[in-house]
């Protein structure tokens, strides 16, 4: 038989004998229940904040550190908050000043993004004259979860999306394209510098992409301005082109080297994957025996071209 001594107060001591079959002390069910009964009865009153003042004065050193109401240390709060939806986090900025700083901190946003598994669908409705509307849908319902009127006059296009941020462009009239980043979770947009067309009538927005460069930890937008080609006269043929890249935080668009040869883009919006934006294009040979080459262009966001060629006959 073994005895467990449980010391609560200096003037209160209780011993319990365990009727254990095993000769060494082990956590038998009966022993556990007995202990829990005594612990619970005392802790229950502590948790219910009853005044046990006279007894409290006689507490042993270990028990004076016992909180009657738990107060979590601040470094555990992000672990909990990063699991809440953004809409609620916007409200919880009101809780107190330190929570407001935490929720507004970009490091917290990254942590929240890493844990996020919500995917939404967004659609542009350019025909709700005179408005342009952005509609958002969750993947398991056809009812829109949000509808926002865009502050746009011209036709609005998607340039790309990444981490819940949409990149939109509109014809700004004249030789400008206006570009905006739209954060769908907090419903706020950011104006980017406009893109100037090289020659007004001839160029239009062809391929584009928006992504996050993991190496420099910056978002970048890339657009390929295409010249209308009179010979082929198809909207998606490119030979002459200008490629422009904007790095978030700068105030301009940089021109980078052109796509090396002419082709037809199969897909306008680039697919962002692992720090690279990829477009599917095809090059149609002018020879009689047409060889269809499917080229996957990878344009690294650090402005280098590299490509993978897949021959399809």
């Amino acid at each position, binding site marked *: 038989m073994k005895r*467990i*001594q*449980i*010391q*609560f107060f200096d003037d209160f001591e209780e011993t319990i004998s365990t009727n254990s079959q*095993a*000769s*060494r*002390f*082990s*956590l038998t069910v009966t022993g*556990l229940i007995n*202990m*829990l009964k005594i*612990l*619970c009865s005392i*802790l229950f009153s502590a*948790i219910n904040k009853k005044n046990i003042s006279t007894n409290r004065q006689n507490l042993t050193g*270990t*028990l004076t*550190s*016992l*909180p009657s*109401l*738990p*107060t*979590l*240390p601040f470094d*555990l*709060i992000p*672990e*909990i*908050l990063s*699991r*809440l*939806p953004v*809409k*609620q986090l*916007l*409200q*919880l*900025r*009101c*809780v*107190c*000043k330190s*929570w*407001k700083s935490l929720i507004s901190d970009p490091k917290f946003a990254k942590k929240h993004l890493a844990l996020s598994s919500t995917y939404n669908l967004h659609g542009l409705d350019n025909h709700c004259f005179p408005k342009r509307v952005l509609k958002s849908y969750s993947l398991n319902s056809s009812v829109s979860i949000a509808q926002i009127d865009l502050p746009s006059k011209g036709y609005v296009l998607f340039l790309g999306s990444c981490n819940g941020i949409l990149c939109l462009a509109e014809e700004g009239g004249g030789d400008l394209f206006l570009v905006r980043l739209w954060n769908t979770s*907090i*419903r706020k947009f950011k104006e980017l510098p406009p893109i100037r067309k090289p020659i007004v009538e001839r160029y239009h927005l062809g391929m584009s992409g928006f992504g996050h460069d993991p190496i420099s930890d910056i978002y970048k937008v890339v657009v390929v301005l295409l010249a209308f080609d009179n010979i082929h006269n198809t909207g998606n043929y490119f030979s002459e082109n200008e490629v422009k890249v904007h790095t978030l935080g700068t105030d301009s668009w940089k021109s980078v080297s052109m796509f090396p040869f002419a082709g037809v883009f199969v897909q306008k919006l680039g697919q962002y994957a692992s720090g690279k934006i990829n477009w599917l294009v095809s090059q149609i040979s002018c020879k009689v025996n047409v060889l269809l080459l499917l080229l996957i262009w990878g344009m690294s966001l650090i402005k280098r071209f590299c490509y993978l060629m897949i021959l399809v006959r």
Partner: protein
Amino acid sequence: MAEEKSQASSSKMLTLKASDGVLFEVELNIAKEMKTVQAYIDDCEDIETIPIPNVLGKHLAIVIEYIKKTNEEYDAEFEKQWNMDDLQLLLLAANYLNISGLQECLCKAIAKRIENKSPEYVRKVFNIENDHSPEEEAKLRKEYKWAFEGVDKD
């Protein structure tokens, strides 16, 4: 006699002493899941009784049982038994003992219970005092007015 026999068996036993003096005898591999205890063992190899001054016997018992039984099914049912205060005390224990699996399970559980609740409710849960001035709070609410719609009643 039986004591010596069992100690000679393959798994070594360790005694953990909770803040209220309750003793728990656990197998070494269970104790090692608590990184704080592991560090203690690394420092003093011959130790047999390890003091856990920040955790009550009641909570240490729950923690030990979690380590023994944890799997997807158990975790899903685990959090349902405890009230919010207990969840937080268990999180404090898991944090002190440095058990990452239990910490994650408890953080998820606490987040689930406060999801879609108002700032007032959340303040009560975590015992936080609002140090915003009324003007500051009004400004914060106005900035994202749409976010304050559709909240669960407290």
